[in-house]
């Protein structure tokens, strides 16, 4: 009987202490920050993306690329409570270049000092939003020179390339014709910035002593056969400033991302 009483008391103690432990955990998070790595991984359908490799698309067209870059900004995380955390604006622009990928074809974006929380979704913009353009040089730091070095800046007009694709395509009528998509927003008249929100398959835990990773896959096939299927022969082999074609590619680009998995380590 006595033993039963003691074990019951112990059980209660255990429950109470584990409860209070949980409470402590939530409280501990305030002021705590951690690192988050976002791995961008370009693919084409169910294949990995490889430079100078021929891929098929609709309309019996094929393409090979030698440059594949896009610009990601305004990364924001939403936690289990619905609170949003936005990475500091002045650091929140990244050029995702396939040429900078590791042997596994992954391009790392490392966010530091992220508020500790349990996040359930990630959102980001493809390109530069009008608000950031309106700031002029303010808050840009070295980004302009970084973009220039990456060939992601225009010199004929003031602006950034949001998507840069160079390569060749072949169709039933042409072989190895030039394929160049250098598009962004043009002033305030053509706004090609798009936002993407992806829910995470499992919660990502940002903690001081952890370095979780979100593995984002970009399906390049969807750039051409996404929300809208386009034909290179029909005006999409050269996409630069035209309002219609740049808008279609911008919409397709925003639709090409998905989260493959999350590591909590």
């Amino acid at each position: 009987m006595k033993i039963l009483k003691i074990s019951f008391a112990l059980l209660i103690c255990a429950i109470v202490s584990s409860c209070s432990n949980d409470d402590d955990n939530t409280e501990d998070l305030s002021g705590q920050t951690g690192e988050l790595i976002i791995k961008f991984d370009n693919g084409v359908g169910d294949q990995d993306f490889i430079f100078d490799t021929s891929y098929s698309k609709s309309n019996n067209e094929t393409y090979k690329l030698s440059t594949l870059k896009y610009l990601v900004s305004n990364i924001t995380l939403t936690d289990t409570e619905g609170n949003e955390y936005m990475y500091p604006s002045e650091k929140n622009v990244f050029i995702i270049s396939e040429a900078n990928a590791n042997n596994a074809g992954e391009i790392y974006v490392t966010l530091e000092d992220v508020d500790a929380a349990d996040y359930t979704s990630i959102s980001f913009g493809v390109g530069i939003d009008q608000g950031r353009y309106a700031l002029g040089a303010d808050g840009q730091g070295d980004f302009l020179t970084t973009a220039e070095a990456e060939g992601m800046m225009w010199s004929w007009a003031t602006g950034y390339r949001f998507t840069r694709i160079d390569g060749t395509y072949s169709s039933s009528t042409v072989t190895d014709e030039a394929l160049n998509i250098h598009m962004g927003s043009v002033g305030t008249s053509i706004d090609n910035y798009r936002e993407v929100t992806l829910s995470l398959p499992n919660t990502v835990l940002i903690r001081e002593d952890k370095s979780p990773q979100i593995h984002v896959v970009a399906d390049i096939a969807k750039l051409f056969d996404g929300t809208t299927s386009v034909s290179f022969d029909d005006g999409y082999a050269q996409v630069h400033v035209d309002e219609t074609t740049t808008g279609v590619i911008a919409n397709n680009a925003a639709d090409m991302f998905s989260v493959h998995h999350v590591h909590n380590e």
Partner: protein
Amino acid sequence: MKIKFLLVLGGILCFSCTKNDAEIAYQPVFLTVEQPSNFPEIVYNLENNPVTEAGFQLGKSLFYEGKLSANNAIPCAFCHEQAFAFTHHGHTVSHGVNGGIGTRNAQPMQNLAYQGEFMWDGAATHLDFQPVIPITSELEMGETVSNVVSKLQADSYYQNQFKMAFEDGEINSENLLKALSQFMVMMVSSNSTYDKYVREEEQVTLTQVELDGLATFNNKCASCHATDLFTDHSFRNNGLSINPRLNDVGRFAVFENPDDIYKFKVPSLRNIAVTAPYMHDGRFATLEAVMDFYDSGMVDNGNVDAILQREDGTLGITLSSYEKESIIAFLNTLTDNEFLTDERFSEF
């Protein structure tokens, strides 16, 4: 004795160190951008880039700095000379590094804080970014922004100037462009004879021919050359014949929109008497030639602005010889000698 001497020496060294540090620290003295009473509101967002004495001086040094170009010899001021309201006097189009010849006439630099779009085709939509175009143009300065930043980082003068002009003291593209903007937004031309007349200052009056010119101008020109900035900031095709050598399609190059073909910015007319030659390609050497063009020289190049069509369908703005003469007399009242000789903007 020895110790005393060392202490004194140490004191002097410390003192001199602190003194030097104080001299090259960020101690902002804020400057106010002029808002003349007869001007529209400032467009440039000064809150993001407040003008300081040191930032303005740095911007001025950069404006006159050859290192912004590939051969270290072509500063901004090469094509923008103060005496001619910062235009390239006598040049139809300008030349740059490696013998490059541009395709457009250098525009005056004045009252830039009151404008939102720059270049003849509006390719720059923020003043901060405008300098990127001439710096990186192969026909103008032929440089990269990154390389300009590297050159400035290696220069002890700029190492100090950037520290005094900006809180973070960094020599980077952000601060380079901010300093240039600080210099440019201060370039306000608002003290011509005409300005003093409309603001009723110093009992300035206009002559009868100037007043007649102003009346005709308001009647026949002011729908495009609107407000006391003398531009409505629009882009229009004014019926110039197409120079096949240049075949400059104007604003079409920015958006590839067929409606924009041969459209160029309606320029301000301030200091127009000193900014010859005229039009985007500098084809007219005199204001008389400009008047004759509007009266009888326009051609139908396929997309001429409807505002320039007469009731009978022909193109042009009918001007008698007295109207031409008096409009030119009025335009001459827009010359602002205080601005053209203002030492704040002068190289020496």
